[in-house]
């Protein structure tokens, strides 16, 4: 079987000092002292949780009252909820989602065109921007990066790759043409 990649996580749990599993950890019957060690901790954590849950319930009720008051004052409550939800999300992810919603609406021939102008995020990699410029046939002198920088070299390499792709496409097309 192939070697398996592992993610590098901080704070990895280790076994006992000698690398051997501690008593009670999958090593047969769990002794009473293990239960006695954990039960008070569970009891305490439960009390803390119950207390916090009571406070959270009260705060939730207060929040609902504020939303209700805002609604009574003319605010669109659903819009506030949605906007707050969007604000927590990633911009690029939202842009993709909205662009796809606009696409589906267009295919459905819906008159709703609210998402029609949403664009996918722009390319930030100089290599890929250069590649697109090469594919478009832009001159190599259009390199917008600072001469001598790594980004400049990347853009130039991308441009060359784009041009190479064009050449190969043209070669394929001409090969398909019938001989005179």
């Amino acid at each position: 079987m192939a070697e398996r990649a592992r993610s590098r996580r901080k704070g990895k749990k280790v076994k006992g000092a000698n690398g051997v599993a501690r008593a009670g950890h999958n090593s047969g019957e769990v002794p009473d002292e293990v239960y006695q060690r954990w039960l008070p901790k569970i009891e305490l954590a439960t009390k803390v949780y119950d207390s916090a849950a009571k406070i959270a319930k009260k705060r939730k009720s207060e929040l609902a009252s504020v939303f209700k008051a805002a609604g009574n004052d003319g605010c669109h409550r659903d819009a506030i909820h949605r906007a707050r939800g969007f604000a927590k999300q990633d911009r690029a992810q939202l842009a993709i989602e909205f662009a796809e919603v606009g696409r589906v609406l267009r295919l459905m021939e819906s008159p709703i065109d609210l998402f029609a102008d949403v664009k996918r995020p722009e390319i930030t990699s100089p290599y890929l921007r250069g590649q697109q410029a090469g594919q478009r046939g832009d001159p190599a002198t259009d390199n917008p990066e600072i001469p001598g920088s790594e980004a400049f070299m990347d853009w130039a390499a991308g441009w060359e790759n784009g041009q190479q792709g064009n050449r190969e496409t043209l070669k394929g097309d001409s090969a398909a043409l019938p001989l005179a």
Partner: protein
Amino acid sequence: MRLLALDTSTHVGWALFAHPHRVVDFDTWEMPEGNTADDMGTRWLAFDFWLAGMIRNHRPLTIAFEAPISPNMPFAKSNTRTMRLLHGITVIAETVAARHGVRCIEVPNSTAKLRLVGDHRAKKPAMIAAALRLGHQVADDNQADAIGVALATYEHLGIS
């Protein structure tokens, strides 16, 4: 270190990296249909030819592929036929890699997601968005997954 990363499915997303910060190319290879629904041999054979061609043309030192989901995982949604197809693909990937003397590494799906998005349960749109943020204009989630597999592999190998 030149690396070819694969997102194994019937739409094989692939990404060729020269080093962790330089993608040479990425695309999706569509696996052809078999003669019948149960004809997996034709599909595996096509994958064998395609992968061997990729190794000959691009000369990667390492191949990495997304580990297929095990049928006993509680969240596995694929049916038995799909499972069989995916496990077959990974067998072929390892076989082709061994034939060409290329190191082969499998990357759990969650590890690739964690590396690219920072969330081991990231959905497809999040993977695409993360790839786009890195500047890779991916066309679909298969390509984004392949990029995640590549980055996780470099991390596993300690190459940054």
